[in-house]
């Protein structure tokens, strides 16, 4: 249930620190989510995303720092926090031997609903999450996408003011992913405040109003997707050549035209570079490549993706996990 006073800021965290033994999982994270907006917490495996979610959902106590969810202090008033949140963890936490309906009914009862209310709410969510046909089958027969939907439905049983979704699409096939995005989209349209963690830049771009990029337990950048892309600046000009032998020539030409060192991808015979003058740079590059006798198979000009942002911020790609437990 939404709390009686709706604060402007639904979630606030100040200087959260958490160590696991000698590993510093969180190294002073601050965050703030205005009510009714979606914050995307973006980072590779082991960046500290799950730890942050676990602290905000009262599952874990930080070593230092403070946090408030829906106006309640997670350290001093965890029960009030639990009444205000819905959590959908990294692994769909559904009981495989219970049917979809029974899973939701159980969660409703555990939120303190009486039997008729819990049943009615379970039915409502079953149909909203398009699980009608599977409602009375044990969840072990569900596809990955259906389990995810059921788990998300579980997080929404009590119409929580704040919903925390930890990597909601990890491990899903593309169809399951699109399905889940749609559900999250609806959730946001209904006015919930959402914290979403993801290692997919595309996902943060699609779903989040604000993005916080974290790596090694620190916030390394924040802003809207557009602001983050703007930080990298310019546009990327990308050339694919016919023969690997032509890569060096192409790279030299792009160095002349572009505003930085070009990236060379030998495997895909691709060279790309940041350019300042958009299509003018493109035409200039093609003219020079033609003069050098380089066969250009493909050419494109694109704004930087969040992948580019991540790469330029951290020096490594977003999905290049460190294999640390999250």
């Amino acid at each position, binding site marked *: 249930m939404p709390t009686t006073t709706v604060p402007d800021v639904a979630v606030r965290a100040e200087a959260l620190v958490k160590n696991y033994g000698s590993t510093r999982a969180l190294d002073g994270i601050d965050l703030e989510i205005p009510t009714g907006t979606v914050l995307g917490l973006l980072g590779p495996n082991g960046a500290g995303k799950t730890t942050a979610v676990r602290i905000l959902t009262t599952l874990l106590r930080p070593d230092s720092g403070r946090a408030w969810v829906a106006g309640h202090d997670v350290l001093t008033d965890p029960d009030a926090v639990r009444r205000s949140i819905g959590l959908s963890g990294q692994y769909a936490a*559904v009981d495989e*031997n219970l049917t979809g309906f029974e899973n939701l009914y159980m969660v409703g009862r555990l*939120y*303190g609903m009486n039997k008729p209310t819990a049943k009615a709410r379970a039915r409502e969510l079953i149909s909203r999450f398009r699980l009608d046909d599977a409602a009375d089958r044990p969840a072990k027969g569900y596809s990955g996408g259906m389990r995810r939907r059921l788990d998300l439905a579980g997080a929404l049983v009590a119409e929580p003011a704040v919903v925390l979704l930890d990597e909601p699409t990890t491990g899903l096939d593309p169809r399951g992913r699109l399905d889940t995005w749609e559900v999250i989209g609806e959730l946001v349209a209904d006015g919930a405040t959402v914290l979403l963690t993801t290692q997919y830049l595309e996902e943060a771009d699609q779903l989040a109003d604000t993005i916080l990029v974290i790596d090694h337990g620190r916030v390394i950048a924040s802003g809207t997707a557009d602001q983050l892309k703007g930080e990298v600046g310019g546009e990327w000009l990308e050339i694919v050549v016919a023969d690997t032998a032509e890569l060096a020539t192409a790279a030299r030409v792009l160095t002349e035209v572009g505003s930085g060192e070009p990236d060379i991808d030998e495997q895909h015979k691709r060279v790309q570079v940041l350019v300042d003058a958009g299509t003018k740079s493109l035409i200039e590059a093609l003219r020079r490549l033609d003069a050098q006798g380089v066969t250009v198979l493909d050419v494109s000009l694109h704004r930087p993706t969040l992948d580019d942002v991540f790469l330029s911020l951290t020096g490594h790609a977003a999905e290049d996990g460190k294999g640390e437990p999250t």
Partner: protein
Amino acid sequence: MTALAQGVRDGGIIAWRNLLNVRRNVDWLFAAVIQPIMFVLLFAYVFGGALGGGAYREFLIAGIFVQTTAFNSAFTVIGLCNDLQKGIIDRFRSLPMSRLAVLLGRTTSDLVVSMMALLIMSLCGLLVGWRIRGSVLDAVVAYLLLLLFGFAMSWIGALIGLSSPSVEVAQSAGLMWLFPLSFISSAFVGAGTMPGPLKAIAEWNPFTAVIQSVRDLFGNAAPPGMAPPQGWPSDNALLYAVVSSLAILAIFIPLSVAKYRRVASK
């Protein structure tokens, strides 16, 4: 609602969920009784002839009953570890529910499984010649004592389950401590013939007291020549059995709940 009332209410919901799990996985129940049935057959007919024949079989059954209820705590271990691994405990811990409920629900549903296992084992005992020779009231007290002891063992299992790093570890950790504990007792032989230190352990082992009480209450005598345990615990078996069960609960309920508050999925 008081904390305890909420714990009982929420625990009931968790127990309902666990029992639905048992009903949809009947192999669980199967596993709960197949091992004791095997023990009955092995001890009754492999060792039994040398140890007193029919009289030994009657003596043996109380030991098997206690072992059955105690070994069911392994299900508490595995059940909780499983919920932990699958992230279900995370979901529960993020809900505004009692911190006692998941553990109380699990130990309660395992108690129901123990009841079913005891029923099956009683029928099995009747088949090999075991009989209730005491009064009905005594028999009821014997079954209640078995369940109390099983419930106490289950709370030890809860702590082990919450501390196990994986389901595989939980599977062996849940049983490992039970073998010596149930064998160094009067479950299968009179503890009187054991060497000094083992004999002392056997005499003070709550298993022995529970077994002794159950035998007394059912009126099952030891076969001739089998040295019974001696000393205060044996002379006051029922009292000692109840007190040690309650002591186990008094220690392991708070320990398990404290562990649950801090536990985290891997």
